[in-house]
């Protein structure tokens, strides 16, 4: 049975209205608590923000690459669109304060608005790219998405309003760990809800066999474009968040390399597995960042830290090759963590179902 199946109902069911937002009600205090605990440690906040952004990117890319089986390698392009649009909006509205609200609150509201604008801009780009190119088969689509990402970068590099190659500086640093992880949670929730819905089933069908799906009455192009737009929206959100906690964004942050990084996370986690994408992105972000900071902290020698950064890229490449040769389904395949755990730790297994 596919992981997208809703689990058999256990225990008392929640009222219909609460069930929809129940996970959020649960998540907000938890993330808030985490923010309260480590919020005054800038290093941890920074690292966890990076991790959160990568989780959003990986989980959103997984909707296209994993669930729908379309291979997009231009995710950084959508991220760039989101980052620049949201960043530009915040730069323009930096001095605004919404009346009747304290400054910090007003800033957060503006941040959410900026993120939504950035996400929508990215989604529109996703639509523009997706509509024509998703009629193409796998490898062509890969190249077109790659080309699209590059075109975005070149356009940013040539636009005066976006600071050309220098990028945008001075974007207000409104983002917080809470904001990043809230959005990460929303992304995961959306991805899981899609996977379990009839919409998701169509996506899985397209992934397994496009021709067969078409024959069963799935409007493949429409579903693919929709998946693409949703994925682009969250990539834009990730970009917007990113723009609000790094001091400067420039086209160099959104190259092909960034796209491949996200692809590696999705592939390593297992194409189609949301929890796999989460775990892989957390690990693949923490390892190099952690090693780098650890080396810098211990020896105070920036050179070793730099070396770690250098060696990361060839290792990503090798990791892809080795994964494909040894375990092409990635960490979890299309399954989720809770499908895999009982098999790894079989002691809680109940009697025959």
């Amino acid at each position: 049975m596919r992981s997208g199946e809703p689990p058999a109902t256990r225990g008392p069911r929640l009222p219909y209205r609460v069930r929809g937002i129940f996970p959020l009600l649960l998540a907000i205090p938890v993330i808030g608590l985490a923010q309260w605990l480590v919020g005054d440690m800038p290093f941890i906040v920074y690292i966890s923000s990076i991790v959160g952004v990568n989780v959003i990117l990986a989980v959103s890319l997984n909707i296209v690459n994993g669930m729908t089986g379309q291979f997009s390698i231009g995710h950084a392009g959508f991220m760039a669109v989101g980052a620049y649009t949201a960043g530009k909006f915040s730069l323009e509205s930096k001095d605004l304060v919404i009346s009747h609200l304290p400054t910090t609150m007003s800033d957060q509201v503006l941040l959410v608005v900026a993120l939504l604008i950035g996400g929508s801009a990215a989604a529109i780009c996703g639509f523009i790219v997706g509509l024509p190119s998703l009629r193409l088969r796998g490898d062509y689509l890969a190249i077109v998405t790659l080309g699209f990402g590059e075109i975005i970068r070149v356009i940013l590099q040539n636009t005066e309003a976006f600071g050309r190659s220098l990028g945008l500086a001075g974007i207000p640093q409104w983002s917080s760990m809470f904001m990043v992880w809230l959005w990460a949670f929303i992304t995961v929730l959306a991805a899981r809800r899609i996977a379990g819905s009839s919409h998701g089933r169509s996506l899985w069908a397209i992934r397994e066999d496009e021709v067969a799906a078409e024959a069963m009455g799935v409007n493949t192009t429409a579903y693919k474009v929709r998946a693409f737009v949703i994925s682009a929206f969250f990539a834009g959100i990730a970009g917007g968040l990113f723009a609000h906690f790094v001091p400067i964004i420039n086209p160099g942050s959104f190259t092909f390399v960034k796209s491949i990084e996200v692809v590696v996370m999705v592939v390593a986690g297992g194409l189609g597995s949301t929890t796999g994408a989460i775990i892989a992105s957390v690990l693949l972000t923490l390892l190099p960042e952690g090693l780098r900071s650890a080396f810098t902290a211990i020896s105070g020698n920036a050179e070793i830290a730099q070396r770690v950064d250098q060696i990361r890229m060839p290792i990503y490449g090798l990791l892809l090759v080795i994964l494909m040769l040894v375990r092409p389904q990635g960490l979890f395949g299309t399954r989720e963590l809770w499908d895999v755990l009982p098999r790894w730790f079989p002691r809680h297994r109940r009697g025959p179902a």
Partner: protein
Amino acid sequence: MADFIQHFINGIAAGTIYALVALGYTMVYGVLKLINFAHGDVMMVGAYVGYGTALRMGPAGRGSFLGATLVFLLSMASCAALGFAIERLAYRPLREKPRLTALITAIGISFTLEYGFQLNFLFLPGAAPRAFPEIIIPTEWLVIGDRDVVLWNWQVLSLAIAVALMVLLQYLVFRTRFGRAMRAVSFDHRIAALMGIPTDRIIAITFMLGSALAAGAGILYAIKDTVVQPLMGLYVGLKAFVAAVIGGIGHVPGAMVGGLLLGLVEEFVVGYTSSSWRDAVAFGFLILILLLRPEGLFGRVTAEKV
């Protein structure tokens, strides 16, 4: 007018290099239906081997015909070996797997080569660009007016080499036993195997041929650019792929025409606007082609069989 002619010459010169790399893409795609993402990086390795060889030869290698030939041959041979190794280790085990798997592997290899060559470790050269020795002393082959239009000897040479290689390839594919076997594998490799064609060997040789062509292109590119650097293959590879698609992927003369066309379009757009748009031109062109004529200029439409 002089401007126009100069851009035309530069465009053809850039186009020949795209064309040579595109030939490799098209051949590999023809037999394996795989976009060999690492092809541009094989070209980069070829340029580095050429750089190393020319450096070892010292002044003897500068501008001598024998030296240049040696540089070309050595680099093509080592890239053929690299191509063989990549095919054997990374692509062959995945041949019966879904195509996405091979595509991901190809991206992985490309990434490994690009960033592996940026390390300073053992024989690896490091990220800094290196000046390529002048194995061909650049001289003006043809000058019109008061240096309004300059045609360099290496531009003529690279066009000549590219055309010669293409003719050779065309002969190989359509007039030899090997070529017939290659076309059979490209048509259907399972049936070809049943007919007694050693498909594995044919595919390996195709890879080696394509990689050798890429090495030649790499040296020509290094002569044109005067430097070698680890990321040089990234964009050339992608653009050459675009060229192959424009010509109709799998079609040998198509790749040549596509390469020249792309070189010209790029040069004209860059020449009359700004050089910072260079990298966007090819991809814009690609998207246009895929929308209007996805099978390319010379390709045939193939229906997807169930």
